[in-house]
């Protein structure tokens, strides 16, 4: 089983660490993983994306042009990558940030209101974990418990006091998605 996922959004939205968390969770489960950032000249801000591959076998190219899933945190990401989702793939996005929704019908589209949930949690920085939780509830690349195990490795020690809130965010996210048609394996 191989999952090829692209995470995309604004630079400040924690896109890269969302992907990294997934990759680390894959390691926790003994899978092969790769995490490839699109590192651009504009490192801070601007759009950011990363491709994460989690697989049972050796990963050939860490860069692919078609994805099993797109996790989109903003409008430009939906606009840019919607067409790159494989048929029957998944597009999950933060409905709070998207004005023009995706149009494809041959994929699963899962709008999630991350924004509101984040406001409830009263911490803007965990938006990405809410989204990751939501994503994993639709597409079981790894288990949430693996993510929880991975978190301490992703966060530098000085941020370990934030583990709890992140874990909470994950779990909240997991429960958010009710609309999604069918979970994708």
């Amino acid at each position: 089983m191989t999952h090829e996922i692209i995470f995309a959004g604004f630079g400040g939205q924690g896109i890269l660490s969302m992907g990294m968390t997934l990759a680390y969770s894959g390691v926790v489960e003994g899978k092969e993983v790769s995490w490839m950032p699109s590192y651009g000249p504009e490192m801070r801000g601007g759009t950011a994306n990363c491709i994460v591959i989690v697989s049972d076998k050796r990963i050939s190219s860490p860069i692919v042009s078609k994805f099993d899933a797109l996790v989109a945190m903003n409008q430009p990401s939906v606009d840019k990558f919607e067409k790159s989702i494989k048929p029957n793939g998944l597009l999950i996005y933060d409905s709070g940030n998207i004005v023009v929704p995706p149009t494809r019908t041959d994929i699963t589209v899962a709008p999630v209101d991350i924004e509101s949930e984040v406001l409830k949690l009263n911490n803007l920085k965990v938006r990405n974990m809410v989204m990751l939780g939501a994503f994993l509830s639709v597409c079981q690349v790894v288990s949430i418990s693996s993510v929880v195990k991975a978190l301490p490795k992703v966060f530098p020690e000085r941020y370990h006091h934030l583990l709890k809130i992140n874990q909470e965010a994950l779990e909240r996210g997991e429960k958010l998605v009710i609309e999604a048609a069918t979970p994708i394996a």
Partner: protein
Amino acid sequence: MSEVLLMEGNEAAAEAAILAGCDAYFGYPITPQSEVIEYLADQGRKRGMVVMQVESEVAAINMVYGAAGAGARVMTSSSSPGISLMQEGLSYIACAELPCLLININRGGPGLGTIQPSQGDYFQSVKGGGHGDYHLIVLAPASVQEMADYVYLGFDLADKYRNPVLILADGALGQMMEKVIFPDYDPKQRKISKPWATTGKTANRPPNVITSLHLQSEDMEKINIHLQEKYRQIEKNEVRYELISTDDAEYLLVAYGLSARICQRVIEIARQQGIKVGLLRPISLYPYPYEMVSKLADQVRGILVVEMNAGQMVEDVRLGVNGKIPVDFYGRMGGIIPTPEDTLTSLKKLMNKTQPKKSSEKLIKEKV
């Protein structure tokens, strides 16, 4: 150390350097490899390494010269423009036969270019960007694991042949994360003695001199002959490559580094479509696996070289093929990474030209 870690290529290389007993690092920041010096400035210093951010790449490479001449395990790293500035120093190091490790996290050129990944420094690396007849041993990793592995290997080869070793990796390999396991490696056991190093002339030996100067042509020619003999040894012993799905291959992809990863995907897709294609991945770009190219040229109908440049390695492949079969090229430039799909399209174009009959072999493709 069998813990599985998830690391960036740059950091994996830096960590490997510490574990390989690297004594000193001299460098200068440049994207996309600044993580090497940043990691070492933190971890390396804490664990006893000399780690210095110095005034320029020119200074850095000459500090490497000094430290290597003094017997230390020493390295630097940079990216394309910075590596260009090191060419005089590298030529000196090669001639003075100083072992050291250099990492080039190749970005898109020429000029200031872009910071996106590229393989545009192939020629500079393998044909010698500096003056005179010399070679660096050039290793091309294709994964984060290899980013670490070739640091060990690089130091060992450098010491063995008293020759500078270059790890040539594109920016993506520096920036991406994969699993990495650091092998058991005991620097104390692996470091060899360097009786030629300038550590202070003791009474029982004549002075040690590190130099690349030989006033008399006759002497300079002797040095050159010695170097050439060493290179022949290296060419004999140190050719490294990986073969993937070549056993039954009718077509061959040749690619290194990230391009080789892309090609692996191409093979997966192509084989699903019934196309028998394999991959030769040169790991040592110098010494180059000419013989394996030649051997495979006897087997396959055509070769597609895939690079993130204008087709530099094509020349080496053609030198190996020696006219036997067509050699095509597909590549992207300026920091763009070829997609498996487009690469496959190029492969099919090559197939169209070669499928009809084997007699069309005389067709030689120029690079794009």
